[in-house]
């Protein structure tokens, strides 16, 4: 199973970016092999609108099954949810800490967006 983390860095020791849509990248970790990949999200950082929607589609295409991030708006959540991607909220400092919390079952599966959209 592949799990994505929103981040501004390039390694598992990088900080977890609390933002989803406007995070500059996603680190995608294969939980079985422990190998990781990086998905660039630079285009969404500068989007005038709909950054979260665009970012969510990147994760859909990367065949990700779960996302760990700080916050997620309603539109992005709808895309992730429709694509069967589980969303976990975390306020951990780094990706590694967030992963530990995930593996120890400390992160619970969220049932909805935790922030309002830019327009609501």
């Amino acid at each position, binding site marked *: 199973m592949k799990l994505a983390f929103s981040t501004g860095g390039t390694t598992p020791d990088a900080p977890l970016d609390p933002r989803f849509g406007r995070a500059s990248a996603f680190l995608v970790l294969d939980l079985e092999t422990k190998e990781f990949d990086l998905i660039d999200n630079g285009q969404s950082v500068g989007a005038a609108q709909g950054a979260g929607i665009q970012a969510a*589609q990147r994760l859909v295409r990367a065949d990700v099954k779960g996302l760990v991030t700080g916050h997620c708006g309603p539109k992005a959540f709808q895309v992730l949810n429709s694509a069967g991607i589980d969303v976990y909220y975390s306020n951990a400092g780094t990706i590694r800490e967030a992963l530990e919390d995930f593996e120890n079952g400390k992160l619970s599966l969220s049932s909805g967006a935790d922030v309002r*959209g830019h*327009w609501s």
Partner: protein
Amino acid sequence: MATGSGSEGTIKIAIASGKGGTGKTLISTNLAWVAREDDPRVVYLDCDVEEPNGHLFLKGEVERSRVVNRLVPEINNERCDGCSICSDFCAFNALATLKESTLVFPELCHSCGGCALVCPNDAIVEVEHPVGTVRMRKVGELATIDGIVNIGVSSVTPVIQAVKQSIPAGSIALLDASPGTACPAVETLKDCDFVLLITEPTPFGLNDFQLSVELLRELKVPFAAMINRVGVGDNRVHDYCQSEGIQVLAELPNDRRIAEVYSRGELITEGLPEYRAVFERLYAMLLDRCPQNGMAMEKSNGTM
């Protein structure tokens, strides 16, 4: 697409300002109220569709309302194969393609029609989607029209256009514009016959006034100024108008009683009748500056 009302003989005069709080709503509501008594053609339009406040002063029950729609895509998910050509094309991120389906976010759509055009599977049709409401009231003899955009809708342009398209033929419409120089103000002002710019004699007032002047010159719409709260500051706005050849059609003094009457949601032409004459003269001057006003100030009572 095409904007404004094409109604023959309609005159559109906008009351605008570079920043909020200069008295735009105070002046446009009182102007409409006084002008209607002598001229049955007058209607009041509140084009500040994000924060329509005119109805707090011109109070009346909504008699009629109309939903404003815009075209947004509808996906036939039986035909959609998840190719993502439409979502890649959309410049506004209003579409999201999943494995074998596509989601639509109508609030972000600008109705360009591009997605339906590029879809290789004929899976997209455009359907109407509500974005706001136009409301009509009768306040005494005065007809008022305002628009209110639904919360969450990103583009206010269609609602402003719908308000302007509701002007009855042959009217003289007084439009309360959104403050500022961004796109909602442009949408209101661009096809008006004349604009009255409200400002106040303070450094902030002058700065924001200059930005509006720049905008109106770019839009090539004729305009004049009205200065509110005269006495509060200095002469820099007056001097600027003189050096730029901008006429000052009217002034209101810095009278604390005006602020108090306004704070209670009352019209100053009712609460402080000595100010009626200012608005009567102002209306006559505005009408004189609209070249197609063939009828001039006709004291008509034949339409009762």
